[in-house]
């Protein structure tokens, strides 16, 4: 499969030439490379939220090669090592090719007709006996836009339940509620161009070097060109990103809340803020405090925002002196002063970038709010090269999970089920009775699995994700899935996983370029691709599976399409507009992605910014026009420091943090099928500080047992790896299906976003 450089250049040239000849349309069916009989088609990478463009080479009905797409603006022909091996991820030898039904402890082959009829009968039975809220679907930020849209339409508009959630609740929900509470519109104002145009970058809980590899190489290149560029990495673990940063600032887990308030304290104390910007574009608010951790089933929270004056906000910040914050965070007061001054330096273009360190946080919404506070105070926002930027982990966490309404509380395009006007608009576009769409959200992801465990949900369909490896406090939810008593679990996937092993029915799915698709990346860029190869055996598209269930449940009229992908996209477009405008489907066919809002044939690089965003009028400069309730202003929130749900104590004296590594993606179901990636990083290890290891008598390569209140696991100790645990902390990657680290994780979550905290729980560490 590896292409020589010469082949690479030739093939690219061929693809480029054909792109020109066909008006840029690069469907696999239309592009014939000049040599070797390989047809090349464009697609975004299947893995993270960066959205690198790739060209997929097909010969004799199989993917024979992939390569970074030189014409893709995101990556200009590059990939990370996962993207390099894309051509192998669909061809693991244990690919699921036949529908399977559980008979006792065995899974036996069945026909699609049998399987879909069984699923439909289970849905009907459950709905009749227990009502529509007894059936649910758990989807994904890897769903294509069409799949997510179809699922939302079927469940909310057809079945009449808000029991739909994506795994994005486990990874992005706090970013969403952060955006919604501060700007009243989801997704970032900035884009990847900010990586080239700024000069000061604060990374918060983001290991970009391994988790957003191609973007990191772009950031580093900016520094190579401009010696003035500074990269400051705030973290609780020394990573490859910390190693390449200009400065690594270690802080105690959870104290990012205090640090950001400390930074704001100094900015306000020394009057380093942009008074004019605040006057024109900002309001101040406070919400409830001491808001809990969602550890109890059916936990409910509703914030109660109250307006504040700038003086009241100043009062709120008073306790966050550098000395107090230093004591909490372990960051020297002098460093906090320096950082605040850097954030406020008028000669600097400042950006903040973050990922799961912020989002998987019991105060995830708050910490998102707090980083916006600093940018709003200093006016360093909505300008080229100067923005806060939430990076995403899944290829369509933005495009699908967030934008088409796959959360229990959401409808397409920033709309919510609690708003009667929004429900009316959805009902009108979907052609259903408005009463059909329930006005109350039901369960967010963690609560959905709790409801399955309790038996409130009877039928659960899982598509394109692996929650029985990735949910926190995993043992409870794994057991819950197999409790019987009418519970019925359906899993659609391409390989056997830790989720399919708990299923009553397994549906073999098509993946990636085995179907037509559309993903939206972290910079609001929508990217379309065509089907290029047939799925193996009897595997079928998840979209077809959804529409087939709809038909069998009597909701077939919701999907009256001849060309479902395109027609559904055009239908979905009717929800957008007013700042979330999408381009016509055919525009995406031609382009290497387009960033919304797309108005009059033009994409938008910087939202809310005059001269860039068509919704901002001349003379306004910046306008947070989506925040109508606050007169087009963004909100600075007074959000205090509150401790983590579970903190180390005498019995469980260490912090456990989980995360990813460069070679593997999420639960490893795809990258684990690539022998080269397996060889490079075979099994999850436990990163431990050498001094802690010494005290415990644990040696490099020795066995270490981690125990939390919820589970225990034995791993190989790694004291000298790429990631270096701080004292009192351990880190374990979660990709390894043989090492279910999430059994140890606590299912505490941010009460506002519902996103669990995979980064902090207390464990005991012993020599095993």
């Amino acid at each position: 499969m590896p292409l020589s450089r010469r082949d690479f250049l030739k093939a690219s040239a061929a693809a480029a030439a054909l792109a020109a000849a066909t008006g840029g349309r690069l469907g696999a069916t239309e592009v014939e490379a000049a040599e070797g009989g390989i047809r090349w088609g464009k697609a975004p990478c299947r893995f993270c939220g960066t959205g690198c463009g790739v060209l997929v080479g097909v010969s004799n009905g199989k993917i024979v090669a992939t390569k970074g797409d030189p014409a893709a603006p995101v990556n200009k022909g590059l990939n990370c090592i996962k993207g390099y091996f894309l051509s192998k991820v669909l061809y693991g030898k244990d690919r699921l090719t036949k529908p399977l039904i559980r008979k006792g402890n065995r899974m036996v082959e069945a026909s699609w007709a049998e399987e879909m009829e069984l699923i439909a009968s289970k849905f009907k039975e459950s709905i009749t006996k227990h009502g529509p809220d007894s059936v649910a679907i758990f989807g994904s930020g890897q769903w294509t836009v069409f799949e997510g849209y179809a699922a939302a339409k079927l469940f909310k508009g057809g079945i009449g339940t808000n029991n739909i959630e994506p795994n994005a609740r486990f990874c992005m929900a706090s970013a969403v509620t952060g955006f919604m509470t501060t700007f009243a519109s989801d997704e970032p104002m900035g884009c990847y161009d900010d990586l080239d145009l700024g000069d000061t970058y604060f990374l918060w809980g983001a290991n970009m070097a391994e988790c957003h590899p191609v973007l990191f190489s772009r950031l580093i290149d900016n520094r190579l060109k401009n010696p003035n560029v500074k990269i400051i990495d705030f973290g609780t673990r020394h990573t490859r990103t910390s190693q390449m940063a200009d400065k690594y600032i270690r802080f105690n887990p959870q104290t990012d809340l205090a640090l950001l308030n400390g930074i704001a304290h100094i900015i306000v104390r020394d009057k380093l803020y942009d008074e004019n910007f605040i006057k024109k574009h900002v309001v101040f608010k406070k919400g409830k405090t001491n808001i809990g951790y969602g550890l109890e089933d059916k936990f409910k929270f509703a914030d109660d925002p109250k307006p504040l004056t700038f003086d009241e906000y100043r009062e709120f910040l008073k306790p966050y002196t550098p000395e107090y914050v230093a004591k909490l965070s372990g960051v020297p007061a002098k460093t906090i002063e320096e950082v605040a001054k850097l954030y406020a330096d008028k000669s600097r273009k400042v950006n903040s970038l973050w990922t799961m360190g912020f989002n998987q946080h019991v105060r995830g919404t708050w910490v998102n709010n707090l980083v916006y506070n600093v940018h709003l105070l200093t006016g360093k926002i909505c300008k080229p090269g100067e923005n806060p930027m939430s990076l995403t982990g899944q290829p369509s966490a933005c495009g699908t999970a967030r934008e088409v309404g796959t959360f229990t509380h959401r409808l397409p395009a920033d709309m919510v089920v609690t708003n009667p006007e929004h429900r009316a608009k959805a009902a009108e576009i979907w052609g259903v009775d408005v009463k059909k769409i329930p006005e109350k959200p039901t369960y967010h992801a963690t609560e959905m699995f709790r409801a399955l465990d309790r038996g409130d949900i009877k039928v659960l369909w899982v598509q394109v994700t692996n929650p029985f490896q990735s949910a926190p406090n995993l043992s409870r939810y794994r057991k819950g899935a197999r409790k019987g008593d009418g519970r019925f679990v359906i899993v659609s996937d391409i390989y056997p996983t830790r989720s399919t092993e708990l299923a009553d029915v397994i549906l073999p799915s098509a993946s990636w370029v085995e179907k037509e698709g559309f993903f939206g990346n972290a910079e609001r860029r929508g990217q379309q691709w065509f089907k290029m190869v047939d799925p193996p055996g009897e595997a079928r598209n998840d979209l077809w599976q959804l529409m087939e269930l709809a038909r069998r449940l009597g909701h077939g009229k919701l999907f009256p399409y001849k060309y479902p992908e395109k027609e559904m996209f055009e239908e979905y477009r009717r929800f957008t507009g007013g700042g979330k405008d999408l381009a016509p489907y055919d525009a995406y066919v031609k382009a290497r992605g387009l960033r919304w809002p797309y108005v009059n044939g033009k994409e938008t690089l910087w939202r809310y910014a005059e001269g860039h965003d068509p919704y901002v009028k001349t003379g306004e400069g910046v306008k947070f026009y989506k925040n109508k309730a606050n007169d087009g202003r963004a909100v600075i929130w007074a959000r205090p420091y509150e401790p983590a749900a579970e903190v180390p104590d005498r019995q469980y004296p260490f912090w456990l943090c989980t995360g990813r590594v460069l070679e593997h993606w999420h639960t490893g179901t795809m990258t684990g099928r690539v022998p080269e990636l397996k060889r490079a990083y075979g099994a999850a290890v436990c990163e431990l500080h050498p001094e802690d290891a010494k005290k415990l008598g644990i040696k490099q390569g020795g066995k270490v047992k981690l125990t939390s209140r919820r589970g225990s696991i034995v791993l190989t100790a790694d004291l000298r790896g790429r990631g270096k645990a701080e004292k009192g902390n351990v880190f374990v990657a979660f990709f390894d299906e043989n090492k279910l680290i999430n059994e140890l994780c606590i299912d505490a979550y941010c009460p506002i976003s519902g996103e669990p905290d995979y980064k902090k729980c207390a464990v005991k560490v012993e020599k095993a």
Partner: protein
Amino acid sequence: MSEREQNGNSGCTRRQFLKGGVGVPLAMALAGGMVTVPFLKRADARGFYLRPPGAVDEKRFLGACIRCGKCVNVCPYDSIKLAGPDAGVSIGTPVIRPREEPCYLCPDLPCARACPSGALDSGLQEIEKVRMGTAVIVDRENCLSLRGLRCEVCYSNCPLIDKAITIEARHNERTGVHSIMEPVIHREKCVGCGICEKTCVREKPVIVVQKTPPKLEDHYEF
């Protein structure tokens, strides 16, 4: 076909066989040697035999090693194999083939400690002082990192990360906005464990452990 199959697996490294005592390993090496010819050619191609940590100078090593297989026996990763008859005078001596299993640098170096003959320096205490060889990127054209892709698997998995291998970023002229993250090996720190060679994602590793060239004398003070 995997590399292991290509090279043949003599079976002479099975520790349970070694438990039989001295003499067995040599016999096994002789028997197994019949099918290990390709490996030996490859070792030759490498220019030297990669010895376990603490091996003394090759000439002295060949005189000192009594072919007892004790180092093989104690290696927890089965990384150490015995050379077969094609190795000539090296027959029955311990070698490491990184692509099969590299040396994972156990902190207490059990192989060196187990050596009764002084062929491996049993006084060796620190893994940083191990000198088995030096990793070299032998095929720069095929190195993915050097082509601008974010691979760096050799660097990420180096047990002496940021010492033996560092990343040096330089501007990628082709894209204009990315950097090429070049893995750079530092001869004075590299111990030659071969983990980089093992983990390299290319079909044929572009980074391999070679014999450390002798330092050439001169009078510069830097």
